[in-house]
């Protein structure tokens, strides 16, 4: 029976991957200039230097889609791991100040220390994400009550406000950085440097592997620290590993696409609704569903505001905020 269930689950997951492939094709085909799917495939398989549509596909749409895939998968996984480790249904890199930490460090690097080149930024984004997440979780978890949703959300809001003040101070002294920052901070997958994607690839890979491997440990942690310990789990190590994966994933996604909210928050809940509470399945499902949301939002953003575009961060906020409110209104939430 169990084998049967696993087979079905795997089959459904493959169906989801199939849907993701369709979304990816749509993301490459739809835009200010619509390109037929046939031409898209042609551009990918037999690129021709003279064909205009091929150039659009290969130099603009493909990098953009890859960014959406990577950032989406990373945010979905990070959200699921955060919710598992904190046992908090409202954990999200945006709400818990991790993205604000990355933003702050990035602006600090560019504006004050005069860094140039993505490689240098990335380390700053990582450091910022790491420091902010440790601070928020540490402050939210002080005392006997543990990290309840309200405490974590408020600690996140406080750290975000604090970091935002410092970020703004630096931006106001430096118009050039402000001009770059306002487009980065809204959260967008468009116009990213292909070299940056390649450089960040290993971080995404390591983060994703660590996160996916955390499934069984997260299942044990869901039963409470004491039970997890008695099941032979090394809780401290598990938490550190999970935190490292979150920092790698969120840091890389933020450096690549800017702070995109609500993806990490909502997707794990959808995954749980589909596959149940088992983290060994929630994690891969989150990894497949989140890029669907991100790329789907990006396509919507390209279509609704023609001839302009809505940045993907706006669309995910518009879709995600109602889901967040719905989650808050569920009674059980308080006890989680």
């Amino acid at each position, binding site marked *: 029976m169990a084998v049967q269930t696993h087979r079905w689950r795997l089959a459904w997951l493959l169906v989801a991957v199939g849907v993701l492939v369709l979304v990816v094709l749509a993301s490459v085909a739809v835009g200010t200039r619509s390109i037929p799917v046939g031409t898209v495939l042609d551009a990918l398989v037999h690129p021709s230097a003279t064909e205009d549509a091929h150039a659009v596909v290969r130099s603009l749409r493909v990098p953009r889609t890859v960014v959406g895939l990577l950032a989406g998968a990373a945010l979905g996984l990070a959200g699921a791991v955060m919710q598992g480790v904190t046992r908090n249904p409202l954990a999200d890199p945006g*709400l818990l100040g991790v993205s604000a930490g990355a933003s702050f460090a990035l602006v600090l690097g560019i504006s004050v220390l005069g860094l140039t080149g993505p490689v240098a930024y990335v380390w700053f984004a990582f450091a910022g994400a790491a420091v902010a997440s440790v601070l928020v979780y540490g*402050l939210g978890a002080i005392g006997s*009550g543990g990290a309840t949703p309200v405490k974590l959300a408020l*600690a996140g809001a406080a750290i975000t406000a604090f970091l935002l003040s410092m970020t703004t101070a630096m931006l106001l002294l430096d118009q050039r950085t402000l001009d770059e920052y306002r487009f980065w901070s809204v959260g967008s997958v468009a116009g990213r440097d292909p070299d940056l994607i390649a450089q960040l690839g290993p971080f995404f890979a390591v983060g994703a592997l660590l996160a996916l491997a955390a499934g069984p440990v997260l299942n044990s942690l869901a039963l409470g620290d004491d039970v997890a310990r008695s099941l032979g789990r090394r809780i401290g190590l598990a938490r550190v590993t999970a935190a490292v994966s979150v920092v790698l994933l969120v840091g890389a996604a933020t450096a690549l696409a800017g702070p995109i909210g609500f993806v990490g928050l909502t997707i794990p809940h959808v995954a749980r609704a589909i596959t149940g509470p088992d983290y060994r399945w929630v994690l891969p499902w989150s990894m497949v569903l989140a890029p669907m949301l991100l790329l789907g939002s990006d396509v919507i953003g390209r279509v609704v505001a023609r001839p302009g575009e809505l940045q993907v961060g706006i669309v995910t906020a518009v879709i995600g905020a109602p889901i967040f*409110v719905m989650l808050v209104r569920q009674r059980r939430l308080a006890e989680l």
Partner: protein
Amino acid sequence: MTTVVRTASVTGVLAVTGFAAFCVSISVGELRVPLTDVVPAIFGAGDPAARFVVGELRLPRALAAVLVGAAFGLSGAVFQSLARNPLASPDIIGISSGASAAAVFGIVVLGWSGNGLVLLSLLGALVTAALVYALAWKQGASSYRLVLVGVGVAAALAAVTSYLLTKAQIYDVQEAVVWLTGSLNGRLWSDVRPLGLAMLVLVPMVLLLTPSLRLLQLGDETATGLGLHVERARLLLVLVAVALAAGATAAAGPVAFVAFVSAPIARRLVGSPLAIVPAALVGAVLMLVADLVARELLGTVELPVGIVTGIVGAPYLLWLLARSNRIGSGG
């Protein structure tokens, strides 16, 4: 009796501190006006340069600080008492974000300024307040849901604001970012007047409603038993508090944490659960001092005051969390 004496003396000390900060704020700057010349200059005496600097530049700015701080302080005090929760201040539950999003829309898309902008941000605040309250409503609006829904709505509104910023010219953006941080830079009489007029109406209303607020703190049933029309009193109080927050936000932007910290500080100073007038005075003193620091900290560059209050206020919120966690009443 002792509470009355303590309230009176705290109020007196706060008023004196506020006046001192007010005078220092007028005296300090590129052209230093000696402290002893400040009051004469306000009334039009002294040398012409000092009279111009004080009368046209520093006095409106200092008055703006007093009015904005007092409005935020009052608004926070009313909200926190109504919800019986120190976290339910307008800047935490998204009301300031609504006012900001509306104002940035006005600046960037409609190109508005002045009174139209004030009305627009008032509208934004009212709509957001209604929205948050309605979304948090489920057989009553628990303050737990109110705070979380407010955080979520604020995050969504922040996305709208940052979208509007990508649509604007960079010069407008710089202006809007200063405004979004909360700033008193370059406030003139034309900026102070609308808020001053609003306060002339709103402050007496708060004072008139304070007895009802005191009754509401005893719980709805007791208040009804004592003859209070509970729903009407609550609605009036919410409207006045939203109007105060919106007016202050329109004049100076969403200055972080002033509404949030003023009332708890006032309550601690007075030692009673309700301290309306002291909260307004604490707000005014905070704004004056923070603005002074923001002006003088970097010498040549004037920072917006919201940066100072953000850097000081966030640790206070965290401290409050840590403390309530330890005594087990947090969340």
